[in-house]
């Protein structure tokens, strides 16, 4: 069940990243509310997963889903650059963050 909590947390994080874009486009209170709800749910499920799973590994997987999913969402729905150098740099940052959480 903890693994499912972790996947749900990552999913809400992707939606949270997406709702930052939505908020910046619309600047209304509904978008802000959605943003807070998405990240709130994400942290809640991450916390639930961490009760059982090791913290470093949970955080690494959560960040991995959220950051890569957020980048994909940006390219698919918000017309963000698909430049391979951009994707390579995001992958470098993400890979290093995951590595640091796993060794730390």
């Amino acid at each position, binding site marked *: 069940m903890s693994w499912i909590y972790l996947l749900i947390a990552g999913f809400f994080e992707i939606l949270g990243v997406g709702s930052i874009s939505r908020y910046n486009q619309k600047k209304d209170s509904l978008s802000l509310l959605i943003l807070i709800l998405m990240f709130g749910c994400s942290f809640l499920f991450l916390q639930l997963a961490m009760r059982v799973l090791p913290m470093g590994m949970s955080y690494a997987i959560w960040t991995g889903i959220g950051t890569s999913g*957020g980048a994909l969402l940006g390219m698919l729905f918000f017309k963000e650059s698909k430049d391979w150098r951009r994707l390579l*740099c*995001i992958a*470098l940052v993400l890979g*290093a963050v995951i590595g*640091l959480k796993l060794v730390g």
Partner: protein
Amino acid sequence: MTKHWLMLIVGAFFEVLWVTGMKHSTSWLEVLLTLVAIIISFYALIRASEALPVGTAYAVFVGLGTTGTIIVSSLLFGESFSLVKGLLLAILLAGVLGLKIITGKKG
């Protein structure tokens, strides 16, 4: 553009504060300060994403936050710092720098 990158650094700085706060808070005042740090850090992330692609902004926000957290836990809380960590930090910062250079040209 540079202003928005500065916002990301501010966001990451407050991210380090709230991550540290979540781990080490012992009083209600510290919990309250942690909450304030969460709000400031996300506010800065949102402002940065006004001009930067959100995928880029979020990766840098997470990356710099992790860098800061590792530095703080080594310097203040005596966690071990290894060669592997140093190498990973170098890769991470190279990625952030690359994003800064590329984003400046093509948005």
